């Protein structure tokens, strides 16, 4: 069981992710964020529950939908928002955009926009941890679409073979853009693939942050002991459409009843109620937390909007070979 401070931290992280994503959604209409965005609203518990157990020097590898992991791992919020505004002060100096976030200071080594592309990268960082004997763990986040890719299977095989300190976190939200999981693979229990690769695999409620935390802790601890990788399939749901701020609920898209069910399972709503029930959170503490989060978001957006844009002459900066 987590100590009280960490229980509150989980709430803060989820609430930050939610509020940042909502603010991005609000601002997107002004067309100043000129990069494709993929929001994690509804999936906050997965990143929060995993990253709470990672050390600052552990690694995280995300995807096109990686705002949540960036925030949960402690990435610099100002630099993230500045990247969304494609400013020189952005975490990737305006070269990456929303899908390519990085903060090496806290082990965030870059997210990829190629589905499944980050799985080998995180596995490779884990190989380095083993060779360098620094006891660092790699956490690789990907969706249910990524398990259709060869990189998923090739990486799990290699990680198991070499007993690498890597945890594979599948955020299963059932959809790859609009393609339902049942249209993409026969095995709809992704965690079962782990057995074939001789590693532990679990399927858990990805909206239950305590459950995510419990299984992530177990998996990370295995890594630290040199016992090898784990696959954790977190069943969750994204509230928004695949990209941008569009809603994709209705005819031919996601069924309204399914959407309503998952809204009722909001990961933050029940966790907040839980914290209140055990006496860790009251309105006063909650207001304090929200005020602090709101301020950091205001600061980040102001920093971003006031930051300089690259100039055309900057095109060849960071080029090492022509």
């Amino acid at each position: 069981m987590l100590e009280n401070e960490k229980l509150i931290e989980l709430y803060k992280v989820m609430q930050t992710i939610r509020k940042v994503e909502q603010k991005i959604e609000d601002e997107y209409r002004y067309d100043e964020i000129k990069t494709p965005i993929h929001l994690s609203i509804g999936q906050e518990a997965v990143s929060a529950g995993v990253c709470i157990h990672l050390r600052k020097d552990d690694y995280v590898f995300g995807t096109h939908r990686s705002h949540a992991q960036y925030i949960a791992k402690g990435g610099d919020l100002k630099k993230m928002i500045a990247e969304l505004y494609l400013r020189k002060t952005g975490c990737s100096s305006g070269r990456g955009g929303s899908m390519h976030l990085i903060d090496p200071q806290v082990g965030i080594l870059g997210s990829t926009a190629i589905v499944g592309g980050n799985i080998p990268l995180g596995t490779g960082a884990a190989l380095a941890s083993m060779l360098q004997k620094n006891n660092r763990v790699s956490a690789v986040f990907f969706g249910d679409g990524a398990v259709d890719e060869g990189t998923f299977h090739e990486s799990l095989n290699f990680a198991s073979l070499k007993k690498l300190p890597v945890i594979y976190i599948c955020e299963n939200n059932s959809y790859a853009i609009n393609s339902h999981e049942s249209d993409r693979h026969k095995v709809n229990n992704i965690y079962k693939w782990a057995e074939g690769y001789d590693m532990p695999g679990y399927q858990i409620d990805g909206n239950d942050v305590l459950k995510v935390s419990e299984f992530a802790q177990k998996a990370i601890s295995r890594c630290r002991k040199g016992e090898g990788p784990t696959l954790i399939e977190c069943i969750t749901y994204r509230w928004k459409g695949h990209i941008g701020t569009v809603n994709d609920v209705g005819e031919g898209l996601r069924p309204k009843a399914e959407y309503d069910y998952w809204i009722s399972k909001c990961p933050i709503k029940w966790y907040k109620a839980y914290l209140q029930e055990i006496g860790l959170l009251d309105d006063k503490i909650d207001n304090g937390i929200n005020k602090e989060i709101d301020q950091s978001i205001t600061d980040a957006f102001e920093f971003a909007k006031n930051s300089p844009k690259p100039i055309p002459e900057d095109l060849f900066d960071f080029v090492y070979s022509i």
Partner: protein
Amino acid sequence: MPWTSIEIEKQDKFFINNDSDSSRIISYKDALYEALDQSMSLDSRIFIMGEGVDDPGGVFGTTKGLHEKYGRDRVFDTPISENALTGIATGAAMVGLRPIFVHARMDFLVVSLDQLVNHASKWSYMFGGKVNIPLVVRTISARGWGSGAQHSQCIQGMLMNAPGLKIAIPATPYDAKGLLVSSIIDNNPVLFVEHRWLYKTIGNVPETLYSIPFGKGIVRRKGTDVTIVAISYMVIEALKAAEKLQTENISAEVIDLRTIKPIDETIIFESLAKTGKLLITDTGSKTGGVASEISAIVAEKAFHLLKEPIVRVCCPDVPTPASDILEKAFYQDSETIYTKVMELMKQK
């Protein structure tokens, strides 16, 4: 693996005699081995992975016994997962190691293009230079003995089109060692293109560790009538052709580019200023290849130096056939170069 032995044994031991002042003569294969061995002994961050790197053959001798010397943590066999392994090497490079990933055939590299092109080559720029990927991908091309369409490709031209990827393509033992060392100490991804038919080539190679700068070609043979720009194994064929052309009193200058990304444009222009005639020869396909790029560079920047149209001697745009008779029709050699130069010289 027939072409790895039978066909190679048929090759002459081509001798590159003016590459360095060193009196020691070793083969291209041993030069590669020495670059790996000496680099690994100096830098514990370097490791080698790939199918068969620790087997008794040791990738045609280039990694033979290194696992015994440096341990299996640093020289290890891998699953047949070219794409993921490229990404795994990239991930390890990102956090401070210096991986060398080996493909015994260049054809297998195609399987790994997602990680090589989408990830390794782009990672540094895409994140504003916050990380570097000091990765070397060694690939070995070959030709002959019915290797066919999937065991013989030379796709270096295709990969010139991938921003962020450097490409070294040595033709001599001296360059094999020096450029492999340069590739290993480079902080960014390098595709290192070897040719199996060069493995027996011998030349002067210093025992000491040395590097060769990227983007610096070399004049292999001085000449005044025609410029032959060659890479990889075609350097040997070009030198043979130049020798024969001499008997016709045609003086051919042979330039070996050594790296094709970056490319040494100056050395080509300087030669063209003398000769005004250009033949380009590559081990790969003609369309969209190395020779195409060089032709474009010359057309853009040195058109005024050309007295005659450019000639390209490359493989035709068909998959490599297995039949020995069709292979002979498919592959270009010193005879093709000789004939094409003779035609070029006759044009008025």
